């Protein structure tokens, strides 16, 4: 047998770059309805096929098929549609606000609405969510007012975070939404800790965490899986594989030869890969994982297979690194259009109602936006008093911060 005389370094590259015509046939997507549904106390090994496969419920004709069909009533389906639409309308409005200079920064979750909205409808309101910056849908589905989010985005006088945080890095304890960090991955193991505390206290609450496929390369991701497995923490670990981490394809994060869901199997607990653009599938798998956690069977890793339709953020220009029409060619479609199609097939929805709902949500967002902008926007104010920046560094302000606070006040008086 002949051998290569020298070693070679493999560098993963994205399949498609600007100028290429994306062809997603290589994904070999399984059909809706074929994935088996094990009991919620399943061992990791029983979820092997699910970790490498793809749970899909809504078929190409819009019907719900297979053992994962959550059999939701039309009321719940319409609720899901409404929240996903509201998330999208809100995102579009805030993106525009950034372009108008009212906020320096925004991040949309377009195409990934189901990932957060469907799970929010499964969770109880007091289950704590440790989200990433792309799960605004959680707050929206928990009926947290978009007005409050806008105040944070504009850093105005009603920004509960007092102008300290980057827009979209919310914290809403009241809605079971943990303070967002700008550092990727750090909160994933914290969710496990929160879940462990709940178990320690013999409480009934569970935790849920979200991470991007890109950030799942961080050590924190693997530590979260270790602790979740070791202590059978009542936590749902979600991973949104939207194919991109800014300009890097999911292959760079380690998805070239395997799935992200399969990571869990190696750690000893179930991993399930789900069509993240299929509201019913995300709902069903989330419910499975929640039931498992609530019954002391431990964690689940859910890989939401989806696509980041929007730019990474308002600072990003994806036309530099991916084909402009890649999303149009994405074989798993748009979560809103797919749920709408399903509802229409059931005879529970029609175009007229859709148009009316759209108009209603746009008006709702517009009203909230006008009200929020009146209270101040980035660059123009009014804001909180800058002296508040010295608060909350510690519970009690030490002498040196009091001195610095006084010094700032002095300079602000002198400022021409």
């Amino acid at each position, binding site marked *: 047998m002949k051998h290569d005389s020298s070693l070679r370094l493999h560098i993963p590259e994205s399949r498609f770059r600007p100028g290429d015509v994306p062809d997603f046939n290589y994904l070999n997507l399984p059909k809706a309805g074929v994935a088996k549904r094990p009991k919620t106390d399943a061992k990791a090994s029983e979820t092997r096929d699910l970790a490498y496969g793809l749970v899909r419920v809504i078929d190409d004709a819009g019907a719900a098929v297979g053992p994962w069909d959550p059999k939701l009533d039309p009321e719940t389906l319409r609720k899901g549609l409404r929240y996903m639409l509201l998330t999208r309308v809100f995102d579009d409005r805030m993106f525009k606000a950034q372009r108008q200079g009212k906020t320096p920064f925004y991040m949309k979750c377009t195409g990934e609405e189901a990932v957060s909205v469907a799970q929010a409808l499964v969770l109880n309101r007091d289950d704590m969510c440790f989200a990433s910056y792309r799960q605004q849908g959680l707050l929206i589905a928990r009926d947290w007012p978009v007005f409050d989010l806008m105040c944070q985005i504009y850093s105005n006088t009603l920004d509960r975070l007092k102008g*300290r945080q*980057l827009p979209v890095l919310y914290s809403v304890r009241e809605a079971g939404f943990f303070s967002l960090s*700008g550092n990727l991955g750090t909160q994933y193991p914290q969710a496990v800790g929160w879940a462990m505390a709940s178990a320690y206290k013999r409480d009934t609450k569970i935790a849920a965490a979200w991470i991007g496929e890109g950030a799942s390369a961080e050590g924190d991701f693997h530590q979260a899986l270790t602790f979740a497995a070791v202590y059978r923490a009542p936590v749902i670990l979600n991973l949104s594989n939207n194919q991109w*981490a800014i300009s890097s394809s999911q292959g760079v994060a380690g998805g070239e030869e395997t799935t992200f869901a399969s990571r869990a199997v190696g750690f000893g607990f179930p991993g399930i890969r789900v069509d993240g653009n299929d509201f019913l599938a995300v709902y069903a798998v989330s419910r499975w994982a929640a039931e498992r956690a609530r019954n002391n069977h431990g964690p689940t890793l859910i890989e939401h297979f989806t696509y980041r339709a929007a730019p990474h953020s308002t600072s990003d220009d994806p036309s530099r690194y991916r084909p402009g029409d890649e999303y149009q060619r994405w074989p798993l479609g748009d979560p809103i259009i797919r749920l709408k199609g399903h509802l229409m097939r059931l005879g529970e929805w029609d175009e007229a109602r859709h148009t009316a709902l759209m108009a209603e949500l746009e008006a709702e967002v517009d009203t909230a936006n006008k009200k929020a902008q009146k209270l101040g926007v980035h660059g123009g104010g009014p804001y909180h008093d800058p002296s508040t920046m010295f608060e909350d560094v510690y519970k009690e302000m030490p002498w040196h911060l009091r001195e*610095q606070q006084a010094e700032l006040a002095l300079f602000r008086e002198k400022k021409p």
Partner: protein
Amino acid sequence: MVEALNSAMDVMLARDPDVLIFGEDVGFFGGVFRVTDGLQQRYGEQRVFDAPIAESGQIAVAIGMGAYGLRPVVECQFADYIYPAFDQLVSEAARLRYRSAGEFNAPITVRAPYGGGIFGGQTHSQSPEGLFTHVCGLKTVIPSNPYDAKGLLISAIEDDDPVLFFEPKRLYAGPFDGHYEKPVETWAKHAAGEVPVGYYAIPLGKAAVARQGEALTILAYGTMVHVALAATAETGVDAEILDLRSLMPIDIEAITGSVEKTGRCLIVHEATRTSGYGAELSALVQERCFYHLEAPILRVTGWDTPYPREFEWEYFPGPLRVAEAIRKIMAG
């Protein structure tokens, strides 16, 4: 400054086949700040490539490559995201030479944009240099202009010890003196904005005189060099401004020489104050120049809080605060 840094890496990739570059988004895309733009296209995917988002892994892998004999240059997307790699830098890169009695070393360069000025909030604005100057075995370099950036980065890559190379992101596009209300300037008109095409190196450990003067010495680096220049002009005080460039190793002769001449010393940095690099500078000056000092040494720094996003300019130690300190020292 972006082009200057790009040129430094271009030069080194061309000169030395053992130089390679990786980090988040640095490959096809050319980096979120465009600093590695075109390098993958020129030198291929084997030499310039994207890394998984795992800073600890990136630095650890670089150490392994460096021990083999390569000269990896890692881009950490923001200095704020270097902390996952803290252990690899502090316990490993910094001590490899020492613990192996010179058998192994880690000739790695870690580039990271630092500092405020772009409304990035607490996770896109930090100045963590003091955490690393505190660690023996690491070198820390911070340029203040394109000419220096290129020459210093080339030296950093050629250096046989691990070098942290912090790039003042607010200076990427042009000089910035803290007057945020003024129109943005580019480097085009700046004396140090012109960057020769080929190879040149500026030795690590050598400060530069940004302004000669007799009345007091201002120790600065990075963005704060420009702030100090503006504050000096506004006060009319004949200050001597040292651009330290290299925080470790530190040009002690330049510092003592200047302070002995002027008898007064002001230290400025954007990083938080307590236990910051300024404290080390202040101690050095006090220990070595005490009998020359005619006034207490003062520090102007960022406040001891995280960088509050909307209050960027209330936080940033701008020319107003620096000028006030200059006056105070001159009165002392």
